[in-house]
């Protein structure tokens, strides 16, 4: 108890130095927490958009389609799968999708496209593409002649709402070309080069007609209301519709590139933050070592009156630990406030980066919001205390080897 008391008083013996070091720890940690919060917000955004546009929380696909993406790898009985999932998950949205590559032609130009066939109302429920319509309107579920095109593609083809375009792609047997005429119902603008320049959307029925496979889809995606329930939903869906020849995947397996990208980005962030931690640790080491060196004589006196060098080393480690705890508390308060601000108001980069940012095929808003990541933030807070404590090890070691008579001779 006396050691704890003494350690706290020693810390405030040179209050200005202690406060400066605490501020360095606190500012460093709060910046780290802010970066973690921003990253968490960005990852959450990417996953939310990725899950809604590229997959679902759970997807059912033909065996092998996930890896090969061949157009003929179709899921048969897609409507039955959709019905079974819809019955089992009444609050969820189930969207069958067909993805077809081809060429879209207007009287003026032609361009390669990726055509998505889906149920427009269901897609609107899970995706935000319907909010990005800048001309015309979203497709009706029974509008099998309508097509939605990206703004850039519309420019290339020089078409607008009401104009005719012709889609050409592989037919049902992959050995002949088929074509189908559509009329442009709407033009969307997401800000993404790939989406705006290459994507078109038609109804599922229209896409099925192109390949003449009435009950087919490449993917039936299940979007549940609470993403936290994704594991349970996967187990339930697997038991319900899992069969030979089908892959039932949860979103991390359905979006491996995105998950991998996030992991790599997170590790890069950790490396950067470790460098920042090292800089803070050097600052703490400097403070603790200075305070030990200038008290050498006093430590000699304490040894003379019978204090063991090991206890003295413990005193210095306690001082370092308190410095770490106080600095971390300051960082936690400041960092917590910054993250809370980012969660509520975010940072708007649109003046520098435009309205949107394309990353991993996803179109993200440049008004970035933060999110809480308690596990990672907690780890950084604990790591800061540990690093500060470790920075006290060298001064403590120095002290444990000090001879009392040498210490007493110090100025």
């Amino acid at each position, binding site marked *: 108890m*006396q050691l704890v008391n*003494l350690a706290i*008083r*020693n810390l405030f*013996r040179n209050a200005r130095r202690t406060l400066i070091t605490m501020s360095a720890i606190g500012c460093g940690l709060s910046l780290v927490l802010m970066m973690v919060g921003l990253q968490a917000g960005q990852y959450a955004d990417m996953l939310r958009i990725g899950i809604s546009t590229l997959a679902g929380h759970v997807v059912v696909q033909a065996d092998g389609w996930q890896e090969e993406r061949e157009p003929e790898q179709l899921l048969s009985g897609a409507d039955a799968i959709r019905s079974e999932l819809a019955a089992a998950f009444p609050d969820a949205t189930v969207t069958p999708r067909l993805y077809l590559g081809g060429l879209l032609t207007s009287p003026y130009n032609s361009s390669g496209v990726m055509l998505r066939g889906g149920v427009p109302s269901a897609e609107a429920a899970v995706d935000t593409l319907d909010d990005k319509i800048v001309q015309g309107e979203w497709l009706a579920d029974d509008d099998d002649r309508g097509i939605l095109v990206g703004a850039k593609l519309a420019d290339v083809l020089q078409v607008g709402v009401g104009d005719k375009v012709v889609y050409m792609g592989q037919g049902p047997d992959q050995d002949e070309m088929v074509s189908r005429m559509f009329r442009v119902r709407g033009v969307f603008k997401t800000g993404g080069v790939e989406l705006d320049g290459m994507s078109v959307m038609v109804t599922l029925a229209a896409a099925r007609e192109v390949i003449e496979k009435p009950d087919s889809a490449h993917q039936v995606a299940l979007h549940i209301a609470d993403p936290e329930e994704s594991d349970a939903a996967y187990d339930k869906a697997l038991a319900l519709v899992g069969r030979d020849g089908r892959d039932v995947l949860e979103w991390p397996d359905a979006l491996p590139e995105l998950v991998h990208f996030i992991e790599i980005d997170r590790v890069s962030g950790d490396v950067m933050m470790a460098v920042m931690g090292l800089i803070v640790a050097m600052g703490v080491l400097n403070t603790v070592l200075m305070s030990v060196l200038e008290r050498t*004589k*006093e430590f000699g*006196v*304490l*040894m*003379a*009156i*019978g*204090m*063991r*060098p*090991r*206890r003295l080393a413990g005193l210095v480690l306690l001082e370092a630990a308190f410095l770490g705890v106080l600095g971390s508390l300051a960082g936690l308060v400041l960092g917590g406030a910054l993250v809370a601000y980012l969660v509520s108001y975010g940072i708007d980069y649109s003046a520098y980066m435009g309205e949107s940012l394309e990353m991993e095929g996803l179109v993200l808003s440049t008004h970035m919001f933060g999110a809480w990541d308690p596990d990672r933030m907690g780890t950084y807070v604990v790591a800061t205390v540990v690093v500060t404590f470790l920075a006290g090890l060298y001064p403590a070691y120095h002290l444990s080897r000090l*001879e*009392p*008579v040498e210490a*007493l001779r110090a100025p």
Partner: protein
Amino acid sequence: MSTVSVRGLVRHYQQGDVTVKALDGVDLDIGKGEFTTLMGPSGSGKTTLLNQIGGLDQPDAGTISIGGVEISKLSSGQLADVRLRKLGFVFQSYNLVPVLSAYENAEFVLLLQGMPAKERRERVMQTLKDVGLEGMEHRRPGELSGGQQQRVAVARAIAGRPALVLADEPTANLDSHTSESLIELMKQLNQEHGITFLFSTHDPMVMDAAHRVIHMRDGTIEEDERK
């Protein structure tokens, strides 16, 4: 049995190519309750002898016993225990812990000894009363005069009831009036509580008060004068 018994004590230092014979075969016995001073010119070996007896430095040769315990071969941890249980120190420049109050400075040794709280409190209050600091328990060293700080140092030295108090020029930083009063205090503690004191000093007032004056020169005892 002597409180301190020193036999054939040798301590040499190397300063460049020169070997300094700080102690060169010292034999000395100090009995219980003695009030002894070491005197001699600078470099005569007074402080080195005090450091050796205090277990703060290791000898090159010879033996030292404190209260029957041979200390010259002990580990640093065991020496710390001997200092804690058997010795008290008073330094020239007080050397109090500046962030602790007078009470806490005196209490520190007892805390290290593991004395129970109630007994510790009674002991500290009595000791501070003995050194004339009643009512000043909560003052920190910076709020005390030089003489008062040295009294706190004496309280710290005697609070653990050591067999021997070693004082290295305790009056060197004090004016003559304060020195006289401090010497009087230590003499009183010696007479009333039987505490053994060993000083190094140049101060004639300390020498006058001592029962025994040991004259040192060139690392040896030149004369051992008993009054």
